[in-house]
Protein backbone atom coordinates (compact mmCIF):
# COMPACT_ATOMS: atom_id res chain seq x y z
CA UNK A 1 0.00 0.00 0.00
CA UNK A 2 1.33 3.42 -0.89
CA UNK A 3 1.63 5.51 2.24
CA UNK A 4 -0.65 8.50 2.19
CA UNK A 5 0.88 11.90 2.67
CA UNK A 6 0.08 13.64 5.94
CA UNK A 7 -2.31 16.54 6.37
CA UNK A 8 -5.18 15.70 4.04
CA UNK A 9 -7.65 18.57 3.81
CA UNK A 10 -9.94 18.88 6.80
CA UNK A 11 -13.60 18.00 6.54
CA UNK A 12 -15.63 20.28 8.83
CA UNK A 13 -18.71 18.05 8.47
CA UNK A 14 -17.01 15.36 10.54
CA UNK A 15 -15.69 17.48 13.38
CA UNK A 16 -16.88 16.27 16.77
CA UNK A 17 -16.36 19.28 18.93
CA UNK A 18 -14.27 22.40 19.19
CA UNK A 19 -11.62 20.48 21.15
CA UNK A 20 -10.28 17.47 19.34
CA UNK A 21 -9.98 14.53 21.72
CA UNK A 22 -6.50 13.25 22.42
CA UNK A 23 -5.94 9.52 22.08
CA UNK A 24 -3.04 7.10 22.17
CA UNK A 25 -2.26 4.75 19.31
CA UNK A 26 -0.05 1.73 19.85
CA UNK A 27 1.50 -0.48 17.23
CA UNK A 28 3.53 -3.65 17.70
CA UNK A 29 6.34 -4.80 15.43
CA UNK A 30 8.05 -8.17 15.48
CA UNK A 31 11.75 -8.66 14.87
CA UNK A 32 14.26 -11.40 15.51
CA UNK A 33 17.85 -10.64 16.40
CA UNK A 34 20.80 -12.08 18.24
CA UNK A 35 22.92 -10.53 20.94
CA UNK A 36 25.55 -11.23 23.54
CA UNK A 37 25.67 -9.40 26.86
CA UNK A 38 29.29 -8.60 27.52
CA UNK A 39 31.34 -5.55 28.46
CA UNK A 40 35.07 -5.08 28.14
CA UNK A 41 34.91 -3.10 31.38
CA UNK A 42 34.50 -6.39 33.28
CA UNK A 43 36.81 -9.38 33.61
CA UNK A 44 35.63 -12.70 32.18
CA UNK A 45 34.52 -13.72 35.66
CA UNK A 46 32.65 -10.47 36.22
CA UNK A 47 30.91 -10.80 32.85
CA UNK A 48 29.89 -14.33 33.75
CA UNK A 49 28.66 -13.21 37.16
CA UNK A 50 26.69 -10.28 35.73
CA UNK A 51 25.26 -11.82 32.58
CA UNK A 52 25.29 -15.59 33.16
CA UNK A 53 24.21 -17.57 30.12
CA UNK A 54 23.61 -14.32 28.20
CA UNK A 55 27.42 -13.96 28.15
CA UNK A 56 27.83 -17.06 25.93
CA UNK A 57 30.57 -15.94 23.47
CA UNK A 58 28.59 -17.14 20.45
CA UNK A 59 25.48 -15.15 21.34
CA UNK A 60 21.83 -16.14 21.38
CA UNK A 61 18.64 -14.62 20.01
CA UNK A 62 15.10 -13.52 20.71
CA UNK A 63 11.86 -12.83 18.92
CA UNK A 64 11.44 -9.26 20.09
CA UNK A 65 8.11 -7.45 20.07
CA UNK A 66 8.53 -3.69 19.89
CA UNK A 67 5.44 -1.74 20.99
CA UNK A 68 5.45 1.99 20.26
CA UNK A 69 2.78 4.38 21.57
CA UNK A 70 1.98 7.77 20.07
CA UNK A 71 -0.26 10.49 21.45
CA UNK A 72 -2.08 13.16 19.56
CA UNK A 73 -5.39 14.76 18.77
CA UNK A 74 -7.70 12.60 16.69
CA UNK A 75 -8.01 14.24 13.29
CA UNK A 76 -11.56 15.28 12.53
CA UNK A 77 -11.15 14.35 8.88
CA UNK A 78 -9.45 10.95 9.21
CA UNK A 79 -10.41 9.82 12.72
CA UNK A 80 -6.77 8.99 13.33
CA UNK A 81 -3.89 10.06 15.56
CA UNK A 82 -1.53 9.44 12.65
CA UNK A 83 -1.60 7.59 9.37
CA UNK A 84 -0.83 3.94 10.04
CA UNK A 85 0.65 3.36 6.59
CA UNK A 86 3.09 6.22 7.21
CA UNK A 87 4.04 4.75 10.60
CA UNK A 88 4.48 1.25 9.16
CA UNK A 89 6.61 2.62 6.36
CA UNK A 90 8.76 4.51 8.88
CA UNK A 91 9.08 1.34 10.99
CA UNK A 92 10.01 -0.77 7.99
CA UNK A 93 12.83 1.57 7.04
CA UNK A 94 14.09 2.59 10.48
CA UNK A 95 13.35 -0.43 12.67
CA UNK A 96 12.88 -3.67 10.73
CA UNK A 97 15.40 -3.04 7.94
CA UNK A 98 18.01 -2.08 10.53
CA UNK A 99 17.47 -4.63 13.29
CA UNK A 100 15.51 -7.65 12.03
CA UNK A 101 17.70 -10.73 11.46
CA UNK A 102 20.75 -8.89 12.72
CA UNK A 103 23.35 -9.43 15.41
CA UNK A 104 22.82 -6.40 17.65
CA UNK A 105 26.43 -6.42 18.87
CA UNK A 106 27.66 -5.70 15.34
CA UNK A 107 25.57 -2.54 14.92
CA UNK A 108 26.84 1.00 15.40
CA UNK A 109 24.20 1.70 18.08
CA UNK A 110 25.79 -0.92 20.34
CA UNK A 111 29.45 -0.29 19.62
CA UNK A 112 29.88 1.29 23.04
CA UNK A 113 26.83 -0.06 24.82
CA UNK A 114 25.80 -3.52 25.89
CA UNK A 115 22.78 -4.60 23.81
CA UNK A 116 20.58 -5.28 26.79
CA UNK A 117 16.91 -4.84 26.08
CA UNK A 118 16.98 -1.76 28.33
CA UNK A 119 19.50 -0.13 25.98
CA UNK A 120 17.60 -1.41 22.94
CA UNK A 121 14.43 0.23 24.27
CA UNK A 122 16.13 3.61 24.64
CA UNK A 123 17.72 3.32 21.17
CA UNK A 124 14.32 2.62 19.65
CA UNK A 125 12.87 5.62 21.48
CA UNK A 126 15.48 7.83 19.79
CA UNK A 127 14.46 6.38 16.44
CA UNK A 128 10.68 6.71 16.76
CA UNK A 129 10.99 10.20 18.27
CA UNK A 130 11.95 11.21 14.73
CA UNK A 131 8.51 10.17 13.42
CA UNK A 132 7.00 13.62 13.27
CA UNK A 133 3.29 12.94 12.66
CA UNK A 134 2.54 12.24 16.35
CA UNK A 135 4.23 12.41 19.73
CA UNK A 136 6.03 9.29 20.91
CA UNK A 137 5.11 8.65 24.54
CA UNK A 138 6.32 5.13 25.22
CA UNK A 139 8.41 2.28 23.88
CA UNK A 140 7.91 -1.17 25.30
CA UNK A 141 9.85 -4.25 24.23
CA UNK A 142 8.94 -7.83 25.01
CA UNK A 143 12.18 -9.80 24.89
CA UNK A 144 10.36 -13.02 25.79
CA UNK A 145 6.84 -13.73 27.02
CA UNK A 146 8.16 -13.22 30.54
CA UNK A 147 10.41 -10.17 30.17
CA UNK A 148 9.41 -6.73 29.03
CA UNK A 149 11.04 -3.32 29.23
CA UNK A 150 9.46 0.11 28.99
CA UNK A 151 10.76 3.59 28.37
CA UNK A 152 8.37 6.52 28.69
CA UNK A 153 9.64 9.43 26.73
CA UNK A 154 9.66 13.01 27.99
CA UNK A 155 7.33 15.49 26.38
CA UNK A 156 10.08 17.19 24.42
CA UNK A 157 11.17 15.18 21.43
CA UNK A 158 14.22 13.09 22.18
CA UNK A 159 17.37 14.25 20.55
CA UNK A 160 20.52 12.25 20.54
CA UNK A 161 23.10 14.22 22.48
Amino acid at each position, binding site marked *: *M*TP*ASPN*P*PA*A*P*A*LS*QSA*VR*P*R*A*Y*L*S*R*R*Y*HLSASHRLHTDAFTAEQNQAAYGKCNNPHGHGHNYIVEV*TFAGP*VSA*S*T*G*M*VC*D*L*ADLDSFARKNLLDRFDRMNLNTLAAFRNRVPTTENFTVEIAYIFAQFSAAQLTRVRIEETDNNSFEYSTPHAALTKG
Partner: protein
Amino acid sequence: MVLLTRKAEFSSAHYYWNDAWSPEENARVFGKCANRNGHGHNYTLEVTVAGEVDPVSGFVVDLKQLKEILEREVVSVYDHRHLNLEVPEFAARIPTTENIAIAIWQRLNGKIPNAKLHRVRVYEMPDLFADYYGEQQ
Protein backbone atom coordinates in the same frame (compact mmCIF):
# COMPACT_ATOMS: atom_id res chain seq x y z
CA MET B 1 -7.30 3.49 44.71
CA VAL B 2 -7.20 0.27 42.72
CA LEU B 3 -7.52 -0.17 38.96
CA LEU B 4 -9.59 -3.02 37.66
CA THR B 5 -9.77 -4.14 34.03
CA ARG B 6 -12.44 -6.17 32.34
CA LYS B 7 -12.21 -7.47 28.78
CA ALA B 8 -14.97 -8.00 26.27
CA GLU B 9 -14.97 -8.94 22.61
CA PHE B 10 -17.03 -7.96 19.64
CA SER B 11 -16.80 -8.65 15.93
CA SER B 12 -17.87 -5.90 13.59
CA ALA B 13 -17.63 -4.64 10.05
CA HIS B 14 -16.52 -1.15 9.03
CA TYR B 15 -14.94 0.92 6.32
CA TYR B 16 -13.12 4.27 6.31
CA TRP B 17 -14.69 7.01 4.24
CA ASN B 18 -14.95 10.78 4.46
CA ASP B 19 -17.93 12.10 2.47
CA ALA B 20 -16.26 15.48 2.13
CA TRP B 21 -13.60 13.95 -0.12
CA SER B 22 -13.57 12.51 -3.63
CA PRO B 23 -13.35 8.72 -4.03
CA GLU B 24 -9.74 9.18 -5.19
CA GLU B 25 -8.83 11.15 -2.06
CA ASN B 26 -10.49 8.52 0.16
CA ALA B 27 -8.55 5.76 -1.60
CA ARG B 28 -5.30 7.70 -1.27
CA VAL B 29 -5.70 8.40 2.45
CA PHE B 30 -7.40 5.22 3.63
CA GLY B 31 -6.02 2.66 1.14
CA LYS B 32 -7.76 -0.70 1.24
CA CYS B 33 -9.79 0.37 4.30
CA ALA B 34 -11.82 2.62 1.96
CA ASN B 35 -13.48 -0.38 0.24
CA ARG B 36 -17.18 0.53 0.54
CA ASN B 37 -18.20 -3.11 0.86
CA GLY B 38 -16.51 -3.03 4.24
CA HIS B 39 -14.29 -5.49 6.05
CA GLY B 40 -14.24 -6.71 9.64
CA HIS B 41 -12.24 -7.37 12.77
CA ASN B 42 -12.44 -9.27 16.02
CA TYR B 43 -12.10 -6.39 18.44
CA THR B 44 -11.00 -6.80 22.03
CA LEU B 45 -12.16 -4.15 24.46
CA GLU B 46 -10.39 -3.54 27.76
CA VAL B 47 -12.16 -1.26 30.18
CA THR B 48 -10.21 -0.10 33.22
CA VAL B 49 -12.03 1.48 36.14
CA ALA B 50 -10.55 3.13 39.22
CA GLY B 51 -12.04 3.04 42.67
CA GLU B 52 -11.62 2.30 46.34
CA VAL B 53 -11.87 -1.26 47.59
CA ASP B 54 -15.15 -1.74 49.44
CA PRO B 55 -14.23 -2.86 52.98
CA VAL B 56 -17.09 -5.32 53.17
CA SER B 57 -17.16 -6.91 49.72
CA GLY B 58 -13.45 -6.49 48.95
CA PHE B 59 -14.46 -5.35 45.45
CA VAL B 60 -13.81 -2.15 43.53
CA VAL B 61 -16.84 -2.97 41.42
CA ASP B 62 -18.89 -6.09 41.09
CA LEU B 63 -17.36 -7.78 38.04
CA LYS B 64 -20.61 -9.41 37.09
CA GLN B 65 -22.29 -6.02 37.09
CA LEU B 66 -19.43 -4.51 35.06
CA LYS B 67 -19.74 -7.33 32.55
CA GLU B 68 -23.47 -6.66 32.24
CA ILE B 69 -22.84 -2.94 31.69
CA LEU B 70 -20.29 -3.67 28.93
CA GLU B 71 -22.69 -6.12 27.36
CA ARG B 72 -25.63 -3.71 27.47
CA GLU B 73 -23.84 -0.49 26.50
CA VAL B 74 -21.30 -1.78 23.98
CA VAL B 75 -21.28 -5.43 22.97
CA SER B 76 -25.00 -5.72 22.26
CA VAL B 77 -24.78 -2.59 20.09
CA TYR B 78 -21.51 -3.33 18.23
CA ASP B 79 -21.22 -7.11 18.00
CA HIS B 80 -22.00 -8.60 14.59
CA ARG B 81 -22.99 -5.17 13.29
CA HIS B 82 -21.70 -2.88 10.59
CA LEU B 83 -20.38 0.08 12.57
CA ASN B 84 -20.80 2.67 9.79
CA LEU B 85 -24.32 1.59 8.89
CA GLU B 86 -25.87 0.38 12.13
CA VAL B 87 -24.25 2.25 15.03
CA PRO B 88 -25.46 5.84 15.34
CA GLU B 89 -22.23 7.47 16.56
CA PHE B 90 -20.45 6.38 13.39
CA ALA B 91 -22.96 7.86 10.97
CA ALA B 92 -20.84 11.02 10.93
CA ARG B 93 -17.61 9.80 12.53
CA ILE B 94 -15.18 7.38 10.92
CA PRO B 95 -15.00 4.14 12.95
CA THR B 96 -11.23 4.10 13.36
CA THR B 97 -9.81 2.34 16.41
CA GLU B 98 -9.23 5.76 17.99
CA ASN B 99 -12.84 6.86 17.44
CA ILE B 100 -14.20 3.52 18.65
CA ALA B 101 -12.25 3.96 21.91
CA ILE B 102 -13.66 7.49 22.30
CA ALA B 103 -17.21 6.37 21.49
CA ILE B 104 -17.03 3.53 24.02
CA TRP B 105 -15.75 5.99 26.64
CA GLN B 106 -18.75 8.22 25.93
CA ARG B 107 -21.12 5.26 26.20
CA LEU B 108 -19.67 4.08 29.53
CA ASN B 109 -18.69 7.29 31.28
CA GLY B 110 -20.81 7.86 34.41
CA LYS B 111 -22.54 4.49 34.16
CA ILE B 112 -20.26 2.44 36.38
CA PRO B 113 -21.39 2.54 40.01
CA ASN B 114 -18.75 3.26 42.68
CA ALA B 115 -15.89 3.63 40.22
CA LYS B 116 -14.46 6.09 37.73
CA LEU B 117 -13.73 5.15 34.18
CA HIS B 118 -9.93 5.27 33.85
CA ARG B 119 -9.06 3.94 30.43
CA VAL B 120 -10.72 2.43 27.38
CA ARG B 121 -8.42 0.31 25.24
CA VAL B 122 -9.61 -1.14 21.94
CA TYR B 123 -7.57 -3.72 20.07
CA GLU B 124 -8.44 -3.90 16.38
CA MET B 125 -5.95 -6.75 16.21
CA PRO B 126 -3.24 -7.91 18.58
CA ASP B 127 -0.65 -5.55 17.06
CA LEU B 128 -2.79 -2.41 16.84
CA PHE B 129 -4.69 -0.71 19.62
CA ALA B 130 -5.90 2.69 20.79
CA ASP B 131 -6.22 4.08 24.33
CA TYR B 132 -8.50 6.86 25.50
CA TYR B 133 -8.41 8.42 28.99
CA GLY B 134 -11.19 10.96 28.53
CA GLU B 135 -10.70 14.64 27.86
CA GLN B 136 -7.28 15.70 29.05
CA GLN B 137 -5.87 19.15 29.50
